[in-house]
Every structure is written in C-alpha cells, then in structure tokens.
C-alpha cells in the first residue's frame, strides 16, 4: 500500500510561482480533488506531482512497499492530451502503453479494457476516426492496462457522456477499494465518494504570488 505526503509544494512556471505552499496527505484508498478557478494552478500541481515539472520548493514523498520506485513510475497520468497515435487502432495504442507502463508481462488484453469503456467494437478502428469522447474513453482505458497505485487525472470527464461518467465512477471506486489513490483536478463532479478537496483558490495574480 502506497501513500503520498506533500509538504509546502511550490511550482514556478515562467518565473512566476503558480503553486504556493500546498500540503496534503493521500493515503491508500483515498481520493483528493483539486478545485480552483481557471489558472489557479491545478494542472501545474498535477504535472509537478507526476514529475513533468520540477518543484521549486517543498517536499513530495511516498511511503509503502514501493517507496524505492520513483513516484512517476507509480502514477498514471491522464491529461488534456490523450496520448494516442491517430494512425494506430485503439487496441494497438492500448497494447503499446500496456507494454510501456506495466511492470510485469501479465497485462490484460486491450479488448477487455475497451469493453469496460464500451468501445470493444471499435477496437480495430484507427483512433483518427473516433470522436473526442471516444478518444478520451480509450485514454481512460489505459488506466486498466497497467496496475499503478496513483491515478493523476486532469479533467478526466471532459467530453464524456453520462454513461461513461458512470463507468468512470465505478472504476474509481474499484481502484480505491484495491488500495489505489486518486488525485484529480476537475470542475465537473466525478462521482468520487467522500473525496477530500484541495482548494487552490483564485488565480495567483490575485494573490500577489509573483516571485
């Protein structure tokens, strides 16, 4: 079981402190939703936790059986871009990410992951022909292809229909029941039961957050 500890996280972008002194605990089975207006630094915080941006201050650590593995390698990141190659089929995209992201050779078949998001019949379709919502569902199916304890989700429900949001909520519950953690930034309700919230407040310009 992995848990995550963040203390006084600060992240700078372009010479400005976008995220300032954020602290939270995230234990196995818990979910944390980052709230805030546009530009409040939700995406920046998530990208820093996923390891894409350097922290300019604070401490981020994780404990548990996998404490020696770097945090990015324990994380699934679903951001604004879907990470799919439009020339390849949905199944090929998922099979690739399963091999790239999974720690073991035992990965579920792409068709079973696509079945969960209701896209099994489009498995052999090039991603270029899928709609925005369908692409997002393929990107979310990646979460089922490789077991990783921390799901970092930046607006995961964008372009999803009601039925898919329901599937996503069920997947969240299942992941948390198995001891997984979820860190999400959202404006729409995600169906996360008793999730803690992290209020990033207003845009940093209003806080006088210039560094």
């Amino acid at each position: 079981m992995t848990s995550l500890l963040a203390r006084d996280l600060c992240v700078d972008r372009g010479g400005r402190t976008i995220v300032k002194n954020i602290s939270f605990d995230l234990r196995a089975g818990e979910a944390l939703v980052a709230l805030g207006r546009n530009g409040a630094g939700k995406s920046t915080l998530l990208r820093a936790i996923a390891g894409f941006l350097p922290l300019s201050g604070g401490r981020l650590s994780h404990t548990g059986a996998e404490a020696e593995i770097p945090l990015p390698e324990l994380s699934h990141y679903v951001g604004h871009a879907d990470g799919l190659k439009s020339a390849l089929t949905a199944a090929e995209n998922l099979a690739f990410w399963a091999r790239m992201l999974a720690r073991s050779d035992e990965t579920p078949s792409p068709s079973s992951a696509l079945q969960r998001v209701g896209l099994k019949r489009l498995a052999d379709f090039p991603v270029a022909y899928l709609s925005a919502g369908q692409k997002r569902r393929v990107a979310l199916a990646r979460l089922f292809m490789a077991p990783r304890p921390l799901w970092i989700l930046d607006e995961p429900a964008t372009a999803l229909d009601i039925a898919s949001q329901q599937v996503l909520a069920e997947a969240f519950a299942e992941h948390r029941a198995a001891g997984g953690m979820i860190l999400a930034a959202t404006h729409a309700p995600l169906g996360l039961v008793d999730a803690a919230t992290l209020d990033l407040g207003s845009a940093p310009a209003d806080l006088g957050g210039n560094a």
Partner: protein
Amino acid sequence: MRSPLSALFWRELRIARSVGGGGAMGVVFFLILVSLTPFAIGPDLNLLSRIGPAILWIAALLATLLGLDRLFQADADDGSLDLLLTAATPLELIVLVKCLAHWIATALPLVVASPLLGLTLAMEPESLAGISLSLLAGTPALTMLGAIGAALTAGLRRGGLLMAVLILPLTTPVLIFGVSSAAAASGGTVPFHIPMLILSALSLASLAGAPFAAAAALRARDA
C-alpha cells in the same frame, strides 16, 4: 517482442510507414533534389561526376533533417511524451530507440537509393560504392545530432526551421568527412579508410552522447 523498447520500436516504424508518417517523404525529397541538380548545372558529365558525392551528401543531409523535426514534437503534441516520462524505461534508451526506428525508416532508404541516383550524376562505380558506404557510416551521426535539435524544439510550434538552424552547423564535420571518403573511393591522395574511420568515429560519438543531451532537453521542455 515483450519488452517496452521493442514495442516502442515497432510502433515508431508503423507510424513512419503510415500515411502522413513521413517515412517515405525523405527519400522522395532526396530523389527530387538530386534529379534537379543536372538541370541546374547542365550536361557537363565531368563536372557532375566530380561534384556528385557533394550533391548526394547535401541532399541526404537535408532529407534527413526534413523528417526529424516531428521526431519528438508529434509525441509532445499528443501527450505521448508525458506518458513516456512515467515509464520505467530510461528516457535515454527511449530516445535511442526512436532514433533507430527513424534512421531505418528515413536514412536507410537514402543509403539504398544513393548508388542509383549517383548514376544520374555520372559517377564512377567505385565512387558509387564509396557514397553508399559513407552514407551508411555517416547518417547515424546526422540522425543523432538532429535528435538533439528535435528535442530542444519539441515544445515549440513550427520548431522545424529553428531545429535546422541549430543543427546544420554541427553537421559540418560529418559532411566534410562524408564527402571526402566518397571522393577518396574513386582515387586521390588520401586512402579511403582514413576519412571513413573518422566518419565512423563521429557517428559512434554522437550515438553515445546525443541520447543524453536529447533526453535532458526533453525533461526540461516544460520547466
């Protein structure tokens, strides 16, 4: 077949071969550039055969750079690059495998096509073999140096031209020793193996160093 790197390699090759992947464009560009030269210079066979190796090398250099700007930019645009950073595989190896796949898809066809195009430039048989061998030894250096530029410009819109401006000066030694080994093959005072060995050394050095430089540039892309 099961390892992450082989999965990446086959994915890259498949994308390069698909429509819009740009795999075939390099060799077509090479063909057009070399075919245009005799029209520009005129039907002077002696002149053409003398400058043939230089024409082929410059065309190969430009054809290699043509597809390289998309090497990391395509992955940066669709979010794949972020996900590759969360893989357990070191980014340096990912860069190396992407370059290998890119070299096979774009530079290897140039090596194969070069003797045929050399014929249109009235080059001698020894010179044709020399140009193929020198391209085989030298294009890995072009791909690896280009990968550094591609990584530096991955986050920019229309970074292709900036990449060419950054990288073309660095390719000067490769061009010098590539052309001189091709010229040495058809006689001259320098034995063939001397420029060829230097060319191979340039390729090996860039193979060893460029993945680290490109990976560092990719990691710092967003910061």
